[in-house]
């Protein structure tokens, strides 16, 4: 698949998401909100992955953002809108602080440390009962944003996804693309060619973490509560990774496709097999990885290259 095709798919996906509220009922809108939230996480996770760094810290950042939002609202009386932005800002700042240390790590060690940091955030929140509500969680007394109306909440989530998409596109277009690819392919040669590895990594880490925190804020404002089990759920780490991989990594369109695939299939399976859909879900992930190792995008690329070689052969004839 070349650049323009992937852009067309992305545009089509965005267009569908934009017009969905006009004709879809509350159920598809709610499913779409869930899918979009994971999609935004998958895209931002992939953005950091483009440098070769595999983060296991998604759940930690979502949880951090969630609590930043809810504590700002409940303890600080911050307006709803502002609290979501605050979650982004707060997570970004924390990422900036810890990024200085942990971005020097590579491979498994980076993954483990991001995982451990997420757990540390969770345990701290778990233990500060009086401030955070502890293990039971904390609720927003005045309820969810927009009085729980599906339409506006849908737009809110779409806005979150929009920020992730815009950032990802900006990365693909700007110097980020060159810098991150260079780091991923060969750090040493990237260094010698004058790429300040650390600065690019830090910027990427801060931006993606801020968006992930903001998604946490949107989650809180959509459901009106946060509890350690819900917002630090391992699902927030593993499902976006699976989505990005099943769609195709190192791109914007891959996580979009993967998100749609996993999100809709899981919901569809549940309607078909209420008692056992998760077995099929697990098997599906296995089968997709085995037979489509580069994700949906890989298949599309292969089809694309086959077509062009066919054309070349025809021309040769």
């Amino acid at each position, binding site marked *: 698949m070349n650049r323009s095709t992937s852009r067309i798919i992305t545009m089509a996906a965005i267009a569908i998401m934009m017009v969905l509220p006009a004709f879809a009922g509350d159920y598809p809108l709610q499913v779409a909100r869930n899918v979009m939230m994971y999609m935004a996480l998958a895209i931002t996770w992939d953005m950091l*992955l483009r440098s070769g760094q*595999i983060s296991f810290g998604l759940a930690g950042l979502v949880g951090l953002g969630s609590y930043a939002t809810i504590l700002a609202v409940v303890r600080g009386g911050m307006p709803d809108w502002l609290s979501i932005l605050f979650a982004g800002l707060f997570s970004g700042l924390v990422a900036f602080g810890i990024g200085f*240390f*942990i971005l*020097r*790590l590579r491979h*498994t*060690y980076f993954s*483990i*440390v991001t*995982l*451990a*940091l997420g*757990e*540390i955030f969770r*345990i*701290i929140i*778990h*233990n500060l009962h009086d401030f955070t509500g502890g293990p039971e969680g904390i609720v927003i007394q005045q309820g969810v944003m927009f009085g729980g109306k599906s339409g506006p909440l849908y737009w809110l989530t779409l806005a979150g996804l929009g920020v992730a998409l815009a950032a990802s596109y900006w990365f693909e277009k700007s110097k980020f693309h060159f810098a991150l690819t260079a780091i991923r392919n060969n750090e040493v040669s990237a260094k010698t060619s004058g790429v300040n590895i650390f600065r690019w990594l830090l910027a990427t880490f801060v931006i993606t973490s801020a968006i992930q925190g903001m998604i946490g804020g949107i989650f809180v404002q959509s459901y009106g509560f946060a509890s350690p089990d819900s917002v630090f759920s391992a699902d927030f780490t*593993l499902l976006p*990774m*699976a989505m990005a*991989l*099943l769609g195709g*990594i190192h791109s914007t369109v891959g996580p979009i496709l993967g998100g749609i695939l996993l999100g809709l299939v899981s919901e569809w399976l549940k309607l078909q097999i209420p*008692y*056992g859909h*998760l*077995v099929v*879900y*697990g*098997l*599906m*992930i*296995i089968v997709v*990885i*085995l037979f489509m*190792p580069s994700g949906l995008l890989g298949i599309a690329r292969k089809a694309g290259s086959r077509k062009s070689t066919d054309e070349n052969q025809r021309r040769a004839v």
Partner: protein
Amino acid sequence: MAVKRQKAITWALGLAASVAILLWKPTVLIYGLQTAGLYAAIAIPMGLVLGIVHIVNLAHGEFMMLASYATYFACKALGMDPLFAIIPTALVTAAFGWIIFQITIRRALKAPELNQLILTFGLAIAFTQVINLMFTSQTYKMPLDYVSASMDIGDLTFGTWSFVFIAMAMLFSFGLQFFLTKTTTGKAALAVGQNPRGAAIVGIDVYKIYGLVFALALALVGAMGALFLTKSAIFPQVGSPFTMKSFCLVAMAGVGNIPGILSASILLGVAENFLRAFRGTRGWADIVFFVLIIVVIMSRSLKGRKS
């Protein structure tokens, strides 16, 4: 010379600390070691797989869960004690692991490590959910008398059964050390772990070694699954938390350092139990695990940078 002296100082400090703890709060050390044994015995097979096959097996704990279920129902049917099932379970789990390796993981070995990660994540979901579907989320537990074995020293009374996990962990650790350094297959495995391409060039069948090592690791997981059943209740999610814990321990020891897993476990087990022993710090016992992991990994990376 300096490194040697540093090492000696570390050892001396560690020894002094444990003597101090032993005198002040003996239970901390006793229970800390028991916890450490359990952690290490589960983590060592993961360290073997990560060190030689180079995959992070996110279904690690789930394989142990499967072994425990198999042991439970076999023992129930035959009226057998799970201790007698350790070796049979090890063999069955090894065979099962080898098959799973051949039909799934092997095909993903050439793909980026992320593929292996998500593939084993899929395996983990499938395993847990199949068991959930077959046996529901209810827990099963073997009632065994000997797990309540206890010992009195002065006015101190403590359970002794869990020491068996330390024995198991040491057996795993020294056994693997022997296998990897003294046997031909083991040496080949070590060579594959260090440099798969080089090993292939000198005529080692890399994929065969991978399959063997994976099966060996699964044999240990299976043995541990049977032993785990003596102490713990089992349910579909019982293995999952151990996957992450093992992964952390392996990383803390450093990939490829199997004996290090045991020392890392002891450090964590004792530290955890130390915090648990006091009212004010009880709730924070979990955090020490993750803080120590970060500290060790960061300081190692700094040291690596300096030298």
